[in-house]
């Protein structure tokens, strides 16, 4: 369970262009559920996702994972959390140019000192499961949008994180690829993984398997509702 209490995030703090991306957010997201954060551009979805994934610290407020306060942890502990707890799929995928798809998938394992052969096999298995086995040796610049996104998913899952986070995952995909992606997410959720997404794509909100939708506007939660007909109660 991830819990946020009165989380505020300011950018350019103390400067004339100070900007509050999030204001006094209280939110609890359950393990094993698929939650969607929605809202217009600039509503704070990506910032909230970054804080949930320990990639940014709140200016004030508390973030806890399974009851343990993480917002005040030193950087090395946050790194460990990012490595073991979260898999993140960025809106623009954030793959490292020049590396092959396989090398990108293996990237999170580099500092672990794991056996190269085993890691390689694991990464290949991930790519294979996502239909990218034949693209493994290809530099990511040569991949299509959908292939790049699946590579990013494979990278996010390489360390078997219990929580998968995706930022606007269908923003750069056509309908067919978006549906394919949603199917992958549904599989991951069915496998017991917690899934947290941001999206302003109605296909996502209405997708099968979505347990909770949280609506943001101007950095505040304006609505936290159940996905219709999915679960009888709010999983949080």
């Amino acid at each position, binding site marked *: 369970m991830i819990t946020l209490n009165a989380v505020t995030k300011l950018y350019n703090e103390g400067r004339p262009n100070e900007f509050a991306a999030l204001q006094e957010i209280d939110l609890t997201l359950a393990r094993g559920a698929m939650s969607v954060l929605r809202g217009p551009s600039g509503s704070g979805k990506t*910032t909230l996702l*970054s804080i949930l*994934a320990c*990639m*940014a*610290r709140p200016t004030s407020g508390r973030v806890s994972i399974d009851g343990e306060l993480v917002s005040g942890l030193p*950087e*090395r502990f946050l*790194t460990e959390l*990012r*490595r*073991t707890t979260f898999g*993140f799929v*960025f809106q623009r995928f*954030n*793959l*490292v*140019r*020049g*590396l092959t798809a396989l*090398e990108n998938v293996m*990237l*999170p*394992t*580099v*500092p*672990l*000192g*794991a*056996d*190269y052969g085993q890691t390689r096999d694991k990464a290949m298995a991930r790519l294979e499961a996502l239909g990218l086995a034949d693209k493994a040796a290809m530099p990511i610049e040569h991949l299509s949008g959908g292939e790049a996104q699946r590579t990013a998913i494979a*990278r996010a899952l390489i*360390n078997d994180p219990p929580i998968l986070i995706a930022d606007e995952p269908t923003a750069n995909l056509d309908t067919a690829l978006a549906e394919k992606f949603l199917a992958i997410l549904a599989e991951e959720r069915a496998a017991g993984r917690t899934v947290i997404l941001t999206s302003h794509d109605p296909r996502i909100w209405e997708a099968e398997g979505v347990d909770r939708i949280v609506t943001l506007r101007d950095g505040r939660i304006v609505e936290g509702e159940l996905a219709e007909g999915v679960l009888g109660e709010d999983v949080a």
Partner: protein
Amino acid sequence: MMTWARRQRALADYTLAALSRRKGKNIALVAIFSLVVFALSSAMFFAAALRHETTVVLRDAPEIVVQKLIMGRQDLIPGDVVETIAGFRGVTSAKGRLWGYYYDRINGANYTVMVPDDPALIPPVGYVAVGEGVPRARGLAWEGAPLFLSRYEGDLKRFDVDRTFSRDSALMTADLVLMNPQDFRAFFDIPEGLYTDVVATVRNQNEVATIVTKASNASPQMRFVTRADIERTYQKLFDWREGLLVVLAGAGLLAFAIFAAEKASGLSAEEAREIGILKAVGWDTRDVIAMKMWEGGLVSLGAFLIGTVAGFAHVFLFDGVLFAPVLRGWAVIYPDFALAPHIDGVQLMTLALLTVVPYMAATVVPVWRTASGDPDAVMR
């Protein structure tokens, strides 16, 4: 330990992949870096090798050289001065020497002609022993070839080359022509009983200055030159010339420093974004720094190795062809000579401190500053 080693190997693998991604940029970087190291190492090796040569040459030189001065210029010294010098307390031996220079009009070379102190080295009458530069300058074969030298009167005198010197110290032996005293006097027209100068050895090295003071007072018309004086002269000569070269090499170093400072001032947006991605996928700040240290280490040590080896080859295999006109004096330009290879750890450490350390710092500091931030902030 195994995990640490595997981790380092994985980071090194990633670094190699990262370097190969920016192949053109990194090759250009290594080339410029190598050039700077080459210029500096050449200057240092050359100057140090010359100093080493000087030390080797002067190691067996006499402690005191006595010259006769007339009107401030050196003149031939009478043989009875040898007895006078030998009579000073503390002097163990004194000998008259015959030596001078011969300008070879055929190739513009300047030879040092002398009668050796060691009787075993004195060639037979009609023969000469020569440094390796003399036959080379004349385009002659080695032993057994005739060497024709022109006397002051203009007539040619034939000598046969008895032997040539090995290269223990090419600086001082390359232009050397050793003669029998009888040939020397006949060739330069020097009467019996006169010498070029007198050399003296002393019992206690620490007493050289005292002996010279006493001898100078007793014989004010003589000039006393000690081995330390000669060493100092060489040292200053090479220091001055090395200084010229260091100024030249310094310009390159300055350009490199500007480049390093520019690099240290911050990372490009692409580099910062990549660091943000690495941190986002679970790399620690230390992992990123370790990776960049691998990168900086590979570039700087590679360039250091290339530059140093090229500098070594330039100085010791190609006779420092680019810097020789600055570092060698007019007196030793001809005939050509090769320096005996000589480098030491201090030189290499100094070179590394001037090149590798600033580059590593310029690489790691901005990365550390960037990588210390949250991944989200770094990527933004």
